[in-house]
């Protein structure tokens, strides 16, 4: 479904990604791992068109995405839950969900009501401004907002970062629910235990290079090796 080959990208003269390969199949959950500053978010920004890649190709389904503006990636079916949540502060919760909602591939699987069923707290706060939400609620809203574009692939960038343990658990159970529904997901996170439970395959980035890749079974077997690359 998503195929990234030989991706290079950077900011100005600073090159961040070197020849990154990444595949996400239909219905698959792939984890992107690595320490801070190793290029995970840059990879996401390149895939979603927020940062034009300097080399390589990004194909989603049958659409070439490298060099396209961000809305092309979204229209092709990528739903982004960005780092830092980035919900719209001057819109209400409901407006955040509705403003960019779309159903480009047949009847919508995700509606406002279904998102509210997934996150009942958002229903309670539907009329509040985005800026009035707690961090966990903002994260739920960011996930709901991406689901409302009825994507084929969800990209979750650090969706549990900085949240209380209880909220983290809620977000992980939501990701498990999405997986059970057959959603394809690219997930970036630092919690290896949680990723082992939910992801099918794992890709580890170090200084912009892919240094390890394998299935969850391979990760469990090779855990010590991989953990060395994730902790300072």
């Amino acid at each position, binding site marked *: 479904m998503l195929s990234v080959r030989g991706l290079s990208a950077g900011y100005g003269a600073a090159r961040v990604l070197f020849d990154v390969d990444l595949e996400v199949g239909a219905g698959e959950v792939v984890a992107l791992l690595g320490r801070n500053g190793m290029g995970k978010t840059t990879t996401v920004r390149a895939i*979603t*068109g*927020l940062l034009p890649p300097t080399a390589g190709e990004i194909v989603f389904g049958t659409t070439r995405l490298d060099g396209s*503006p*961000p*809305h092309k*990636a*979204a*229209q092709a079916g990528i*739903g*982004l839950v*960005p780092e830092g949540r*980035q*919900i*719209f*502060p*001057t*819109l209400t919760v409901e*407006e*955040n969900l*509705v*403003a*960019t909602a*779309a159903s*480009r591939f047949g009847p919508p699987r995700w509606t406002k009501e279904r998102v509210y069923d997934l996150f009942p707290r958002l229903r309670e706060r539907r009329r509040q*401004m*985005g*800026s009035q939400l707690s961090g966990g609620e903002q994260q739920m809203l960011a996930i709901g*907002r*991406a689901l409302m*574009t009825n994507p084929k692939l969800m990209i979750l960038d650090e969706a549990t970062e900085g949240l209380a343990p209880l909220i983290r658990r809620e977000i992980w159970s939501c990701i498990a629910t999405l997986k059970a529904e057959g959603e394809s997901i690219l997930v970036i996170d630092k919690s290896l235990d949680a990723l082992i439970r939910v992801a099918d395959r794992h890709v580890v980035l170090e200084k912009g290079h892919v240094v390890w890749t394998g299935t969850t079974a391979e990760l469990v077997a090779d855990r010590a090796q991989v953990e060395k690359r994730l902790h300072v």
Partner: protein
Amino acid sequence: MSLTLFAVQTLNGLQFGLMLFLVAAGLTLVFGVMDFINLAHGVQYMLGAYLTAVLAKVTGGFFTALLLAMPLTLLLGLVLERLVFRPLYARGHLDQVLATFGVILIVNEAVKLAFGAAPISVPVPEILSGSVRLMDGLLFPVYRLAIIGAGLGTALLLWLVIDGTRFGMLVRAGATNAPMVSALGVDVRRLFTAVTAFGAMLAGFAGAMVTPILSVEPGMGDGVLILAFVVIVVGGVGSIRGAFIAALIVGLVDTLGRSFATDLLKLVMSASTANHVGPALSSMAIYLLMAGVLAFRPAGLFPSRSAG
């Protein structure tokens, strides 16, 4: 300082403020959504005035001219966006300022060549001529009341669109985080084109409405542009509500300041000093206001970006 004069000048300030709001509304959205500094926005105001003045001469009716001028100012906004603004989005503010300043010079000269440097006057439409007695000894021109009504009506309409429609949601979302709107599948360039064109039409509408009370001349948009920038800085870039409140404040402070600063100063200083200081101070009043607002609320009264 009589109460009547105060009431008249308050109404004049309100009318001035509402016209400023129409110009500032487009400017604040364009600046807020795309981070684009459009100095040529004052030109749209002038073009609205010229189109109305010329069409009024040709067709003989002010309202016909107004109706024809609106789609034309919308079209001119689209043309400017395509030809001049679009290549500049990715550039820095300095390039944008230089290029759009160039547009001001070119259009001002073009207008001079086409219609001459002499001011054109437009008669007040028959149906809105004359004055009404608002209270004892207070006569106020009907046309100025009509401008106040039109300004309030447009503000209400704009509020309904920005607050109640999906287009409005996207504009508000774009003002806080345009890349994110784009990453969720909305072509922000197209959104921006629409915002620019409507902003141009609003400025053109303001220009058209003032033709019967001001002289239509080259460069008439330049002063308005500067005031509109004061408005959007005071109100908070990207915020329509901020622009509305700030436009009324600026309109009232400027108009009342010019009328009453000298009289007020006479209470605390000698008459001759007050006669010198008053006019100087009143022309500075809105800039002092802006400096004061920036000192305490650097993002303006209603910041759209920093919330959250």
